[in-house]
């Protein structure tokens, strides 16, 4: 048996196993891992599997999994809702690749506004220029004012006010 045929045979075996297991309402972590290994083994960049109970999509091309952000029910007063909308975090996706990402220069805590009772530095749709301050990242009471460094429009906000951020983590997506 040639190597290709062997690989095909292996894959068929695994596929059958997975199909059998997915008759359960969901996949467990071991099954997911096995599925990911199978996809990796065959060099697929995209894999989709669906049956009556579950739909799984794996992709190697994007930096983060495609996650539909579910908005929490807002019980705050209407005035606060407006502010929340400006900082609705989103996960970077493949469609954001053409955006300029403003990233955090240090590990710290992200603040969208200069003070809790103040408006956010920038909101979705705002036009920014190189020197526009877009947020503060605080680390050990060192306040780092982050500038946009490019001109464009704020089209994505990836983090929430008060959230811890890592070095190099995308904070904003700017369409130049």
């Amino acid at each position, binding site marked *: 048996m040639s190597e290709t045929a062997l690989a095909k045979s292996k894959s068929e075996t695994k596929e059958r196993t997975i199909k059998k297991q997915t008759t359960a309402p969901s996949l467990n972590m071991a099954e997911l891992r096995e599925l990911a290994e199978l996809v990796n083994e065959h060099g697929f960049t995209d894999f989709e599997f669906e049956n009556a109970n579950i739909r799984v999509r794996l992709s190697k091309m994007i930096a983060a999994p495609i996650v539909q952000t579910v908005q929490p029910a807002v019980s705050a007063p209407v005035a606060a809702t407006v502010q929340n909308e400006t900082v609705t975090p989103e996960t970077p996706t493949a469609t954001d690749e053409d955006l300029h990402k403003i990233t955090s*220069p*240090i*590990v*710290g*805590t992200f*603040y969208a506004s*200069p*003070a*809790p*009772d*103040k408006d956010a530095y920038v909101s979705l749709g705002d036009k920014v220029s190189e020197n526009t301050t877009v947020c*503060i990242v*605080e*680390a*050990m*009471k*060192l*306040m*780092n*004012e982050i*500038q946009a460094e490019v001109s464009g429009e704020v089209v994505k906000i990836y983090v929430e*006010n*008060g*959230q*811890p951020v890592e*070095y190099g983590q995308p904070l904003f997506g700017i369409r130049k």
Partner: protein
Amino acid sequence: MNFTILRFDTIESTNTEALNQAKRGADEGLCVIAKQQTAGRGRHGRNWVSEKDSGLYFSIVLRPKIEPRFLPLITLMSAVVVHDTLEKLYKIECDIKWVNDIHVRDKKICGILAETCDTPKGLAIIVGIGINLKSPNFPPEIAETATSIENETAKTPNVEDLLQTLTRYFAIFYEVLISENGAKKIRQDWTERSSYAFRKNVKVNIENEIIFGITRGIEENGALRVETSDGEIKIIHAGDVERLRKV
């Protein structure tokens, strides 16, 4: 380090003035001091009470050539500077509450706030230090949690002596920080002076949550390690730490 001192009777904020000076190209070591601030700033937009002649309101421009990950250690270093200044000059026994509040018998005597800014000469850091000289006019909500040099020594401090010692220690510890292995030495200096470094029962108010736990030292950048009751180590980069008293 060479110091140039700009003195003001009244100013909005010494940090704001130092930021503007840095943006106009001020050298490292430029200091702004004022007898009164009309809009003194604390952490994250809080007001810093700055009545006339009640405090030393001091900001300094720095242009440190150190690894960016160690930049936050400047605020820990500044706490060590003030700690040693007050002990040397006034024999006041101080503690450093993470990250850089100077406390005497659990009351705050000094607050420190640092800011970065991009300037034509590169990145600058402004360190603002507010030391309480006298405290007769503290508002009631502050009076219970704050103290002053006058309160602790029963003498009115001489501002010039204080400024001289403060800048002398600043130069010494800043040289340490920017030297080889300086980050490690500053972490050691801070840890030796702070009762909050290890085994302290604390409550940490972070923007979106409250954490209870025991302190387990600091990270390489000065972040506080807090072990929660389920054994998890939380790394704190920003927040208000309170000591929990045993019941």
